């Protein structure tokens, strides 16, 4: 009895000590733990899958990461604000299908840069609009984001099928193939776009008022309201950003596979949320990093890619991702419990 109490004491003291490290060092350590996993995986697959280290592998991994990373970036903001956006996968499908239908409709031969630009605009507008609708339902009607985006998840999936009559859309112009599979100075367009989006989101998160309010809202919504921030407008912008990124993913997915279907993003939602969680953003809100999400996304792709190289079926990826989500959330919850225990253990010491 005495022994277990002193052990608890020791643990809580250690946790208190670690919370005194200062936020910067703390978040650096947090980031490094997923970074360490990433590096560990890279070393592991390098040894177990001969010939794995190559630029082909590198770009395969980066390209495969690009699409769902776009969803994960938007999801990171939503989760930091203590919400969730379940509609991004079907939004990706809807935007991809809508842009493909438009492109096929207006395409009359040639390389087709103009029609692809029109299709790109359509995908973005549809993503932004779909996101804004989520934001209005959550921000103005006051619905819980889980329910609101579960509803629009279904609605957007339905719209995608209505637009395409339920069939995949193909016969896209060469310009689309270039967008989806081309590259500049050896770097695929998809990778460049995802990298630019990551930089943009990282800047938004740490250098703008809007980004700071995402964190503050996740930590204490009421304090932000009292500080005079227009919460409704903020919420609309938050989901609009998430939707816009999903729209972009829809366009790029269509370009990559030269075919659009309502099902294009069906597994991307799960993988995107997994990337956020593995990247160290807790579902409790108020904390998180964009770079963590990028690392989390890379971890997921490397596991899939490494499995394939090792001869394990790629289907295992979803199973493993599911398991990883549970483990990552459990570890996060466990740390939170320790922190609360530590805080109550240090309660009598009010005279600091």
């Amino acid at each position, binding site marked *: 009895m005495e022994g277990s109490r002193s052990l608890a004491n020791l643990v809580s003291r250690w946790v208190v000590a670690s919370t005194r490290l200062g936020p910067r060092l703390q978040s650096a350590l947090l980031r490094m733990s997923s970074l360490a996993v990433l590096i560990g995986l890279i070393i592991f697959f390098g040894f177990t899958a001969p010939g794995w280290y190559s630029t082909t592998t590198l770009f395969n991994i980066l390209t495969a990461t690009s699409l769902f990373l776009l969803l994960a970036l938007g999801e990171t903001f939503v989760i930091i604000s203590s919400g969730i956006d379940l509609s991004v996968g079907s939004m990706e499908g809807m935007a991809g299908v809508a842009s493909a239908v438009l492109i096929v409709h207006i395409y009359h031969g040639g390389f087709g840069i103009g029609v692809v630009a029109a299709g790109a605009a359509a995908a973005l507008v549809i993503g932004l609009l779909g996101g804004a609708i989520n934001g209005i339902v959550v921000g103005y009607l006051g619905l819980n984001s889980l329910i609101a985006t579960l509803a629009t998840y279904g609605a957007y999936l339905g719209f995608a099928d209505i637009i395409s009559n339920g069939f995949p859309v193909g016969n896209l112009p060469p310009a689309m193939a270039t967008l989806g599979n081309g590259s500049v100075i050896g770097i695929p367009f998809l990778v460049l776009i995802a990298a630019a989006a990551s930089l943009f989101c990282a800047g938004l998160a740490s250098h703008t008022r809007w980004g700071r309010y995402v964190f*503050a809202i996740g930590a204490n919504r009421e304090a932000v309201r009292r500080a005079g921030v227009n919460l409704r407008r903020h919420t609309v912008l938050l989901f609009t950003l998430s939707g816009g990124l999903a729209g972009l993913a829809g366009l790029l997915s269509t370009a990559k596979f030269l075919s659009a279907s309502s099902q294009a993003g069906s597994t991307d939602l799960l993988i995107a949320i997994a990337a956020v969680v593995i990247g160290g953003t807790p579902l409790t809100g108020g904390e998180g990093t964009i770079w963590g999400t990028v690392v989390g996304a890379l971890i997921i792709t490397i596991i899939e890619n490494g499995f394939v190289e090792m001869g394990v079926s790629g289907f295992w990826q979803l199973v493993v991702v599911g398991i990883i989500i549970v483990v990552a959330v459990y570890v996060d919850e466990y740390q939170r419990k320790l922190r609360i225990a530590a805080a109550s253990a240090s309660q009598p010491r009010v005279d600091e």
Partner: protein
Amino acid sequence: MPDVVVVSPIGDVDRLEVRDLSKSYGGVRALHRVSTVFRRGFNGIVGDNGAGKSTLMRIISGDIQPDTGQLILNGKELHLRSTADARRAGIESLYQDLALADTLDVAGNMFLGREITRNFLGLRLLDKRAMVRAAERTVASVNIQIPEVSRMVRTLSGGQRQAVALARAIYFNAPVILLDEPTAALGPKETAAVLGLVEQLRANGKLIIMVSHNIPQILDIADHLIVMRSGRIVKEVDPQSTSQEELLGFMVGSRT
């Protein structure tokens, strides 16, 4: 107080009058035709649970709007639709529930909603360094120890958190400061430190309104004292010439 940067010289406030304020929640009359004048210095409010103290404070802080009645600051009527309106008018509040954003640092909380920005290629970006410097200077002028302003407020004690909220009022040089039971969650040592800070603010000519449950404490420091019961002001007293027993009598209604 030592050299604290004055960012918004709103000017001093000599007089804050509330006139005929009423507020009901459904059938509950939280506030019924309350009128009084708060003057520069330390105004205390006491009263039993549910007397309407917090409701009055929230109306003055712009957090809620009264059903009827007026707020008059230095002779001018105020129409507060939000806490942001109140801040613009120079009214800063500390809440009963230590409302800070836990995962933001000290500087982030001090400047929440009023961040310092800089222009970068036409974009308005956060000027974190300026905010950290300003926060450090303000905290240094305050006699409460806050380790570093880049510390997440989650790791701070209750007194340190109230000090962060007070530092906000000090930095923005608010002439009117509302405190709703600021020491309710604090131990004796931290309570003394927070009250010391409030004392400094009074010495600087601020108009302070503080709700307290601690009768001896408020009798000791208030310049003027208001007693509330069932949504009304039942008595205004001079703390110098009032005993604890008399005050308790007014609070529970055994004296009038």
